[in-house]
């Protein structure tokens, strides 16, 4: 990058003068070739890019690398923005791909600018590293929710994951009429606290910038009402209840889609953006691995389970009418494997029974938790991820990433598309270190100490303890030791006294994330991550105070940190991609069974660490079997199929396919193994030369 950035300014001027300032469509191929690298060189990670700049950056990369990069505009958003996808790989010129692909969906909620930067960073990396794109296609959707993503850059700045579709949130006589308002004109939509007899909130005693719910059982009485900064623009008594914005694309995918939720839209795919993605994935069956760059993370810890589904695959009750038919006891529960064993003898010969068929027949409903076989590779990868982060020195303790959301891209890609999916976030607030030294003396410790043990601590330590315990200055260590020695005082009494002393105002009840935010703001942002509470004269509410966390502080590190975070973490995606299932023919053997009759046996192996396909992919049957064919002339099949289907090959596993053929002459035949998402292989077998 640094070299490209030094490209002489004069040259750019020259290029502009010669070729004119025409846009992409107006450029001649020569101009694209020349102007491209210059533009791509502008891609620096010292600031966040707007959705428009992100799309332009993808275009610049495509222009700079016409041989292997190409932009697809998938849709136009309600806000008139482009949903731009960068394709990088050896097959950009072909509509139908022969090679597998990796899909990266970034910033689907539009509220995580860093995720978008990570996708751009990855795109750039892929353009630079030929080996990472030589045998596969990468599809990079750097900004999955352009309308929402634009709000980070707007004034006032606000965090809202919805696209720009007009939506009547409060179902009244107007749409988008009552959004938040930047009352104090600081460019930030913060919070507003109003003193109110019904107020439920109080300031946290030890950190009065933060608010907590008053706990009446502890003698606390609520003082404030807390709400977003704004006006009741439509005079209906509600504040900010119908702001601009419609559908959160990050939760608008079909798996566990929440119908009738405030921001999920009419149906999964009701939006141009999501519908275009559905169509894309339907048309691009070569996608065999997906990443979701956002707020959740399936590499630090495997995807979560524990959801209550319609059916537990290990405890299936067989409906009475079916039970009689398959000889099951309707009062017992079975595993799906047990049921398959019962059904198998009843199936017509040659019929391939699958779990999916049984589950569908019994009406078991959708899978809602990751399947055990898949958790194996997720666990393995999260171990590897820890090592990776350690090596990159980015393994400092930080707050947990957000949980994956119902209706998210990652859930859809795993449960419906059956792909291995890895969600990644790239930053959360550092964990606040509790600054309590291990040898701190608490009343409880003190009670258990003998007087001698206490005195043995020494004057210095005792002095420090007295100070921290809030003893008056006149109360010196020497005196205390003397009192104990003389029998006037002992450790038990001292502990009792300590317990009765008024407690230092604590931070109990404060939201840990807000605590971390304040600490981060103070330490790294010069306090700019938090708006100090300031009085404000509200037109309808009267005296209020405006303050609170600055939106995005908890998800979006300062621009100067971007490059370091991405440089250390984004290459992980390349590491994971190396593990994509890869189908090969390990061996092919010919055996002569008699005159002109031969047995051909081929071992189809998966030469990689991810299974073909995932257990979920087997269950939902969206990923096709490996198709193994025997080609050539001058032979007849005696046994076996011209197209043999191998439904699954475990990671590093293999499956044999056998044919018996008859050939008058010792011909050469070709065994081919084909997949869409895991490459393929071929091997010539020679019937001649076998004994």
């Amino acid at each position, binding site marked *: 990058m640094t070299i490209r950035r030094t490209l002489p300014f004069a040259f750019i001027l020259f290029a502009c003068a010669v070729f004119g300032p025409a846009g992409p469509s107006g450029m001649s191929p020569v101009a694209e070739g020349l102007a491209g690298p210059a533009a791509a060189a502008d891609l620096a990670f010292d600031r966040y890019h707007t959705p428009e700049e992100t799309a332009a950056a993808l275009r610049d990369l495509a222009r700079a690398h016409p041989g292997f990069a190409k932009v697809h505009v998938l849709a136009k958003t309600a806000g008139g923005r482009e949903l731009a996808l960068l394709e990088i790989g050896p097959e950009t010129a072909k509509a139908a791909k022969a090679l597998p692909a990796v899909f990266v969906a970034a910033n689907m909620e539009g509220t995580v600018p860093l995720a978008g930067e990570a996708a751009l960073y990855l795109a750039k990396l892929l353009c630079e590293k030929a080996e990472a794109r030589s045998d596969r296609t990468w599809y990079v959707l750097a900004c999955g929710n352009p309308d929402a993503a634009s709000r980070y850059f707007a004034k006032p700045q606000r965090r809202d994951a919805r696209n720009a579709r007009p939506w009547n949130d409060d179902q009244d006589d107007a749409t988008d009429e009552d959004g938040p308002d930047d009352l104090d004109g600081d460019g930030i939509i913060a919070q507003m606290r109003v003193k109110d007899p019904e107020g439920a909130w109080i300031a946290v005693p030890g950190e009065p910038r933060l608010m907590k719910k008053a706990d009446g059982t502890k003698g606390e009485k609520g003082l404030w009402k807390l709400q977003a900064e704004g006006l009741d623009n439509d005079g209906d008594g509600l504040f900010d209840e119908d702001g601009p914005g419609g559908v959160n694309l990050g939760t608008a995918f079909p798996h566990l889609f929440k*119908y009738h939720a405030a921001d999920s839209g009419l149906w999964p795919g009701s939006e141009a953006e999501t519908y275009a993605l559905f169509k894309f994935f339907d048309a691009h069956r070569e996608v065999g691995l997906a990443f979701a760059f956002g707020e959740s993370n399936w590499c630090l810890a495997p995807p979560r389970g524990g959801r209550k589904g319609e059916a537990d695959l290990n405890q299936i009750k067989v409906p009475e009418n079916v039970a009689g038919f398959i000889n099951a006891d309707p009062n017992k529960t079975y595993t799906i494997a047990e049921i398959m064993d019962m059904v198998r003898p009843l199936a017509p010969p040659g019929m391939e029974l699958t779990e999916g068929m049984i589950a569908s027949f019994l009406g078991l409903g959708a899978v809602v938790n990751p399947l055990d076989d898949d958790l194996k590779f997720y666990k393995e990868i999260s171990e590897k991820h820890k090592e990776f982060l350690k090596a990159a020195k980015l393994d400092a303790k930080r707050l947990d990433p957000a949980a994956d959301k119902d209706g998210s891209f990652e859930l859809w890609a795993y449960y419906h598309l059956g792909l291995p999916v890895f969600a990644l976030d790239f930053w959360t607030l550092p964990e606040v270190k509790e600054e309590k030294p291990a040898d701190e003396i608490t009343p409880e410790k003190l009670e258990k100490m003998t007087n001698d043990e206490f005195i043995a601590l020494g004057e210095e330590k005792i002095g420090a303890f007295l100070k921290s315990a809030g003893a008056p200055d006149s109360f010196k260590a020497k005196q205390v030791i003397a009192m104990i020695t003389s029998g006037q005082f002992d450790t038990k009494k001292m502990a009792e006294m300590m317990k009765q002393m008024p407690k230092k105002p604590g931070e109990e009840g404060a939201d840990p994330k807000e605590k971390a935010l304040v600490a981060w703001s103070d330490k790294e942002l010069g306090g700019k991550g938090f708006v100090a509470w300031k009085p404000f004269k509200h037109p309808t509410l009267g005296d209020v105070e405006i303050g609170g966390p600055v939106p995005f502080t908890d998800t979006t590190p300062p621009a100067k940190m971007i490059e370091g975070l991405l440089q250390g973490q984004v290459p992980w995606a390349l590491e994971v991609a190396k593990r994509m299932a890869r189908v090969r023919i390990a061996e092919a053997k010919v055996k002569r069974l008699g005159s002109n009759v031969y047995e051909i046996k081929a071992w189809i192996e998966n030469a990689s660490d991810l299974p073909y396909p995932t257990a979920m992919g087997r*269950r939902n049957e969206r990923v096709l079997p490996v*198709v193994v064919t025997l080609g050539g002339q001058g032979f007849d099949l005696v046994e076996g199929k011209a197209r043999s289907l191998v439904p699954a090959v475990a990671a590093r596993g293999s499956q044999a396919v056998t044919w018996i053929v008859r050939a008058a002459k010792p011909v050469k035949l070709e065994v081919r193994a084909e997949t869409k998402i895991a490459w393929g292989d071929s091997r010539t077998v020679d019937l001649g030369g076998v004994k």
Partner: protein
Amino acid sequence: MRKIAAFALLLALAASTLPAQKAGLSVPLRFDRYYTLDEVYEALRALHKAYPGLTKLETVGTSEEGRPLMALTVNNPKTGAPLDKPGIYVDGNMHGNEIQGGDISLYLLDYLLGGYGKNDELTRLVDRACFYVVPVVNVDGRYHFLADANSPDSNRTLRIPVDDDRDGLVDEDPADDLDGDGNICVMRKRDPFGPFRTDPEDPRLMVRVKPGEKGEWTVLGDEGIDNDGDGRINEDGEGYVDPNRNWGYDWAPPYVQGGSGEFPFSGAGLKGLAEWMMTRTNIVFVWSFHNNGGMILRGPSRKGLGEYPAQDIAVYDYLGKQGERIIPGYRYLISWKDLYTTYGDSGEWATATLGAYFYCAEVFMAEAEAFQGASERPAPGTARERAVSDIFSGGVSERDRIKFSDHVVQGDLYKTWAPVRHPEYGDVEIGGLVKMSSRLGPPFQIKDLVHRNAMAVLFTAKHLPEVSLEIVEVKALGGGLTRVRTRLSNPKAMPTMSALAERADLYPRDMLRVSGGKVVAGGQLVDPYRDRVTYKKDRPGLQFLVVPGFGKIEHQFLVEGKGEITVLYESRHGGKLVKTVKID
């Protein structure tokens, strides 16, 4: 396969540019045979041409093969714009082979428009309601069902290629019309080890051999060959994406329910239709015509969705029971409970996304082809029980059907076994019930079927909300304050918003707006005798409400000032009404 689709598309386009070949179709339409898709289009054009002032013909979507989904809207502009009236929507033929819905839709249009100005009931209906009719949803399906060789059950789906046998080849092994008679029947082969022998009563039928008996026949399944040489027959035909599992509510992927498609509204025509319906915000009721079994089905379509709100069930029960009387033999049932579970069907979408009421009618009963005299029929009561347990056959056997075919339509519904040379099985016989049997009544039954079903629609149309607005009291309270009481009443079964739509907050409730004076307080009048009002604190001049079915809702406003007060009622489903009153 794509090539074939493209070719078919070209043909379809070429056909659509040709002038209408048959000048035979004119209004009033005749219902003595089933219309081909082109004739449906032609009939719609003829209706539009005959009643230009009352109809609007438009394309609401385009199918996979490029055919238009056409809607005819019936509205009298002299009595208001469509969206200012309650609307009823009717569609048919969502499954390609279930063609009667198209004919019912056309009959409804023809009857309604033909009776306008002649029959008072019909005139009143046309003047106060808006009818949206989409006779054929699966246009490709209807076209191919009638044009190609089919069985009664084939060609149900959308023309979206699906690799059913997951072998990497798509739609490569469909059924084949080996004898070229336009029907996909059944193949059998002589086989002394087969499980069937010829029925001694009727040589066209087969019976299962008893233990120890010698077999005679093996049934080889639907007419066809192993086109892809994988050892299986007809295992990867056209589709399968079911147009009634592809809608955007409670959709589930194909591994949960076969045929649902890759994602909701992957069907291009369905997507266009649904989006068009969303803009027809006045649709109160949706009827969708399928076959068969003789059922008027309401949701929920899946148990897990939970029962509908009691207020909605009351509406369904009232209309459904009347439907049972209008169409004798049909049963009003609950979809998941009495039929089967479905995900992503159009009905649940209509109720839970569009916010309408919905019936799916499964038209045509097997009983219509029962060859049984009155004294031979099972006693009343037991027949119903048996029919529910065996909902499609209705207790009518193939034997009955063959006799019906023999004696009532002179053999038209059955193809007698005839030898054919099969490339893999050698000598086989092909025979059985033909395409136009089983789920479709023979032509002489069409008129009764389309008439009665259309009348069930008209009964529901009569119960679309019919709201009237009255200012029932204007009373000076002194000090320049006036009390204004309003009443919105509705003598029909349907409220202006279903309880389900209310619960899900699908769209704004009706609005009652008072302007002209300063509204100091306003709210719903709960008890007029004790002056009990649930006042709305903010914006009291604008009230949100639902007018119940068979009922009323009253409001009270305290108004300051003098002059003309305007009360405006605006509702998606109840129309628009204005009343004014002078305060002096």
